[in-house]
C-alpha cells in the first residue's frame, strides 16, 4: 500500500533568518493506518517538521485545495504544486515498483517500518536541495542587480 508524504517548499525570501527557523518543512503525511499515522506524526515532529496528517488521498487533495470542488487553482497551471517533493512510504519492498515511483517523479522512497534516521536523512537532503535553489535565486538576483547598476552607471544616473 503506497502512501504519499509531501512537503511545501520554504517561501524563498531575502530574509535569511527564516533559514534558521527550526520548523522549515511542512509535511502533509497520508496514511490509511491509524497506527502509522500516529507514529509518523510523532516521527516528523521530533524531526522538527510541521505536520498535517490525513487518512486518504482524497483528504490530501482536499487539504491542498486540489479536489476540484472549490478548485480555483488549475492543477496544470500551478507550478508551485509541481515543486512540492513527494515521498512514497510503503511496506512493499519490490524494486520495479520503487523504480517506477522514482521514475514518475517521487523525490524518495521510504521502506516501512520507517525509522528516525530515515526521516532525518530525508529532511537533510530536502533542505540541502532547497538551499541550492535559494542560493541559485540569490545568485541570479545578484547578477540582475549588477546588471542594473552597470546600466545606471552608463546612463550616468
Amino acid at each position, binding site marked *: 500500500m503506497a502512501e504519499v508524504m509531501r512537503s511545501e517548499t520554504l517561501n524563498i525570501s531575502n530574509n535569511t533568518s527564516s533559514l534558521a527557523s527550526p520548523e522549515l518543512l511542512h509535511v502533509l503525511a497520508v496514511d490509511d*493506518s491509524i497506527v*502509522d499515522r500516529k507514529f509518523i506524526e510523532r516521527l516528523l515532529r521530533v524531526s522538527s517538521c510541521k505536520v498535517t496528517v490525513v487518512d486518504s488521498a482524497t483528504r490530501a487533495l482536499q487539504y491542498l485545495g486540489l479536489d476540484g470542488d472549490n478548485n480555483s487553482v488549475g492543477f496544470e497551471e500551478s507550478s508551485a504544486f509541481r515543486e512540492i517533493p513527494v515521498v512514497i512510504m510503503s511496506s512493499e519492498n519490490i524494486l520495479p515498483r520503487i523504480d517506477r515511483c522514482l521514475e514518475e517523479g517521487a523525490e524518495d522512497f521510504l521502506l516501512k*517500518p520507517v525509522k528516525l534516521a530515515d526521516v532525518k536523512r530525508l529532511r537533510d537532503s530536502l533542505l540541502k536541495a532547497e538551499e541550492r535553489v535559494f542560493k541559485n535565486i540569490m545568485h541570479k538576483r545578484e547578477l540582475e542587480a549588477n546588471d542594473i547598476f552597470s546600466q545606471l552607471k552608463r546612463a550616468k544616473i
Partner: protein
Amino acid sequence: LHAMNTVVAQLQRRFQDYLVSLYQQGFLDNQFTELRKLQDEGTPDFVAEVVSLFFDDCSKLINSMSRSLERPENVDFKQVDSGVHQLKGSSSSVGARRVKNVCISFKECCDVQNREGCLRCLQQVDYEYKMLKTKLQDLFNLEQQIVQAGGAIPQVNIN
C-alpha cells in the same frame, strides 16, 4: 534519601531486565526501540498510546476477518488478505514481532485460499496480540512505578 535511591535503582533494574527479556523472547524487535526513541519527558505516554491504538486495530481486524472466514462455502479471501496486510503493517510499525510473523504465515494461507490454515492463523494472531498486550501492560506498570518513585526511565540498549 539513600533508601529511595535504592528503590528507584531496583525498579529501574527490574524494568531493564523485563524489557530485555521481551526482546530476547521475540515479542519485540528493533522497531519497538524506534518507538521508544520518540518518547520523552514531554510525551511520556507516547509508546503506550501507539500500542493501545495497535491493540484496538488488532481486535477490530480480527473480528472482521473472523466474519469473512465464518462460512466455509463463502469465504471473502480478498477481505481477509486486506486485513492481514493491515495487521502486518501495523505490527511491523510498532515492533510486535510475533504478531508480525504470524501475519506472514497467515498471508500464505490466504494466497492459496486455505480456510483451515487461515482460521489457525487467526487464532494464533489473536493469542499473540493478547499476550503482548499483557506483557506491555506489565512493562508500563514498571515504568509508572519508576516515575512515581521519582526516577527516570532508563535508556535500554538492545544489541
